[in-house]
Structures are given as C-alpha cells and as structure tokens.
C-alpha cells in the first residue's frame, strides 16, 4: 500500500526500555521509498536499540512503528523479513559454521520461489565475486570484510524493501571500509531503501541523502546529509573538524 507520498517507515514517539534503562526516549523517524538515511551519534546513544526495535528483537515500551502501511510494533522477530524489513546486525551476525552459500540461502529462507532465488544468488555473486570464489568455505574462516559481504549479500537474498545496516564498517581496515561503502552505494543505486547506523559519521553522511543525529536516546537534529555535513555543531561533535 505504498504511495509516493506516504513514507515506507514511520516511527512516532518511540520509547524503548532495554536492560533496565531507557535507551530510546521518544523518537520520530521517517524514511521514504528509495532514500538512504544515516543515523549517527555517539556510543550508547540508542542507535542499535532503535534498529533492534524496528525488527522486533526488542519490544517498544511506547509509541508506534508503521512499515509499508502496517503497524509492526508487536510482530515477532521472525515475521519481519517476509514483509521486506531486514537488519544486518552489528558484528555482522554471520553463521560461522555454515558455508558462504548456505549463509546466502538463509537469507532466502522465507522464500519458496526456487528460480528467483537462484537468480538472486547469481546477482549477489556478481556483486561480490569474492564470495563466489569462496562459496563452499565456512563463513567463519573468512576475513572481516568478506564476512560483511556475506552479511549484506545474505540480506539482499531476502529482497528487502528497507535494509537496516548496523555499523557496517566496524572492525574493518580503512581500505575495506571504502569497499563496503562502495557496495552500499551500489545497493542503493539498485533502488533498495536503507537506514544506516555508522560511527564514521563523515562517511555515512557523504553516502546518505538525509541524516538523523541521536544523543542519549533522543533525536536532536534531522536534516539533509549535505546540510549536516556543513553544520558547525555537527562538524565539531561528530566530524572531527
């Protein structure tokens, strides 16, 4: 039921209590079809909790979440992927003792369209030739960058309408980070809508269309990515300038 005017994801007054603390204290977010949105902020600002709540891994204490025109705030975590909402978790979350190929197949777990799955698999291998070379290898034996490729490739196998990426650059060498962000731009160019959490705020904002800044559980600034990059307060707090 997506129209051009209504947002793909709409979060209103979302509050989340997680491990006894109020990690998210009433935030509003909106993501439109085709956008790449960055969510930046310091460690512990509540970014990861927000993403986990969007996919049902954590239940909201209050507020509403609507995805693709439907209230998703009470769904079980395993009911999101078939609706097109997919998270690439912090630390990549690959299955270490499954092969690369089996990891990718897990992304298509909810699907039964064999021909289309094979087609998507070929597309992921085109996007990541490295993974094709290693398809029979256990994913746990890959390098960090390759594991991130597995995680993103696996998410693409789910045919996401909205892809949530939690710290895709974490623990990776700078040159690999560049490579991962190239891939993110490629995926965005294919029309996948994305919400990106990133410590590397500069890189995130250079890649995104829009950005939100989160501090201690609240969103303090929301603006176009270019405007955020030019904002002196953001520059001094997050861009190291």
């Amino acid at each position, binding site marked *: 039921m997506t129209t051009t005017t209504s947002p793909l994801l709409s979060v209103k007054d979302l509050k989340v209590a997680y491990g006894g603390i109020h990690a998210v204290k009433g935030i509003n977010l909106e993501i439109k079809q085709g956008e790449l949105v960055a969510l930046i902020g310091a460690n512990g600002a509540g970014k990861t909790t927000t993403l986990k709540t969007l*996919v049902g*891994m954590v239940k909201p204490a209050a507020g509403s979440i609507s995805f693709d025109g439907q209230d998703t705030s009470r769904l*079980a*975590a*395993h*009911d*999101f*992927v*078939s609706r097109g909402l*997919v*998270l690439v*978790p912090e630390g990549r*979350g*690959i*299955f*270490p*003792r*499954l092969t690369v190929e*089996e990891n990718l*197949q*897990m*992304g298509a*777990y*909810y699907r039964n369209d064999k021909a289309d799955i094979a087609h998507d698999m070929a597309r992921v291998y085109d996007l990541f030739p490295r993974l094709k070379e290693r398809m029979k290898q*256990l994913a*746990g*034996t*890959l*390098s*960090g960058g*390759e*594991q991130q490729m597995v995680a993103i490739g*696996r998410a693409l196998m*789910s045919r996401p309408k909205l892809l949530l990426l939690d710290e895709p650059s974490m623990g990776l060498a700078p040159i690999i980070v560049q490579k991962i962000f190239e891939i993110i731009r490629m995926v965005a160019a294919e029309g996948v809508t994305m919400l990106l959490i990133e410590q590397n705020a500069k890189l995130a904002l250079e890649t995104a269309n829009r950005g939100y800044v989160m501090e201690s559980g609240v969103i303090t600034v929301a603006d176009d990515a270019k405007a955020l990059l030019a904002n002196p307060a953001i520059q001094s707090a997050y861009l190291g300038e």
Partner: protein
Amino acid sequence: MDHLLQHLINGLVIGSVYALIALGYTMVYGIMQLINFAHGEIVMIGAMVTITCINLLLGANVALPGILLLTIGLAMAIPVSMALGYGIERVAYRPLRNAPRLAPLITAIGLSIVLQQLATLIWGRNYRPFPAILDIKTFEIGGAVITNLQIAIIVLAILIMAALFFLIERSKLGRAMRATAQNIDVARLMGVNTNTIISLTFVIGSALGAVAGVMVAANYDQAHAYMGFLIGLKAFTAAVLGGIGNLAGAVVGGLVLGIVESLGAGYLSDLTGGVLTSSYKDIFAFAVLILVLLFRPSGLLGERVAERA
C-alpha cells in the same frame, strides 16, 4: 585375546544404541546449550510403551508375525516419546529460556525423577520381560556369534543416522536448525521460527531415543522403569566423548564407548586377577567421562572453527 571379535560385535551393538541416544543429547545441547537429563526417561518410556503394546496385542490373540508386532509397538512408542519430548520442552524448558543456566539443568534432573516415578506407577518396579516374539537366529563369524536381532539393530541404527545426517546437512530445515544453533537471534531475523525449530529438535531426538529404547530392551530381553538413568548417563558420556553439540561426534562417541565398555567387561576379570568381574563394566563409561573432562573437554571431534577471522 580369544573372544576379541565377540566383544567387538557386542560393543558395536550397544554402541549403536548409545549413538542414537547421544544424538538426542547433542542436538538439544547444540541448539540451546542445555543437557536434557530427562532424555534417558524418554528412551525408557519408548521401551515400556512398545512392550505394553505387544503384550496387549498378544493378549488379544492377534496372530501376527513377531516382527510385525514389534513394528506396531514401535509405531506406537515413537509418537508417545515424541509427544513427551515436545511437552517437556514446552512445559519445563521454554519458560526458563532466559533463566540462569543452572535453573533448566536442575529442572532437567527433577523431570527425570518425576518421569521415573510416573513410570513405576504405570509399569511397576519390577523388570519387564521383552515378549518372546522374535525368531532369533544366530550366525557364526570367525568363532564369534551374532544374532539376526543384533544385525538388525546395527543396520537400523545406520539407516536412522544416515537419514538424520541427510536432514541436518542437506535439507532447508536442517540448515535452519544449524543456523539456529549458531546464532539464534540472526536466525530469527532470517524468518526462522526458532521456537518451532527447538520443538522439532526435541521431537526428533525423542523419536531416536524411543527406537534406541526398544533396541536395548529387545537385545537384553527386558526393560525397567529406572533403565533410563544409566543408559542416559552413558549416552551423555558418549556425547561428551565425541564433543557435545557435534552430531558426528555423538556417533563416534557412542561406538567408542560401546566398544570400550564391551572390551572392558570382557577382560576386567583377567586384568584384575579376578578381583573385579564383568558386573563392574559400568566403571569404564564413567572412567571415560572423567578422563575426557580432564584431558579433552571439547571431546574427540569438538574442535570448532574460529567464530571470526
């Protein structure tokens, strides 16, 4: 070493049974890091239900070949054990999913006792003879004897294990089970209903346990309400020996334990100059457990690849 071949055959037979039971322990451990100590009772109940069914059929003067009676008994016992395994997980373990690990462990031991007591209420405290319905034939190979029943136990165990490995390693369901064992949160994100996967793991392990219970009852011509305790503990030892959580390890551990025990029982009297007789054979299983825990806690096949490169 005159009876070596005979001891090896006997070890292989009981080892196959241990392996089937050990698979149930290791599957559950692999997916939820829980030792389901009630698994031995599921094995016992499989044996008891089969014996009761066969006796009922015999009492009703059903004139069927023994092998068919046994098959019917097994066909009744397997669903009972599966339902029991499912119920145990739902009632006793699921509410404790997020509790400290000691809680489900103590629950498991408590459940084991409850099931034992229930079994004595239903079947009494005495040994139950396995109905003499099978036409046992013996074959001689190289001075050793093997019965058609023992051959059937080994062949059936191999077939069941092959089917299980195919399911786990080759099917979509098996892939989801392995994914759930490795990262349950991410498996959920992939759309896997992990509660269903956990239930299925208990149900499949219980089916294997029921078959193993019938095998051991048929092989030793008897069953007992407390039989699950010792055989369960030995199969658990086999699972630890092979590397708990590792399916191939459970099979290797079961076979090795069966053979060690059989050789031990055979030569214990000679080794100790007659001080200890073969009735002390249970020493071997638990000596193995202690040695493994001391020197190789990860088990024979328990080595795992690095989680992260």
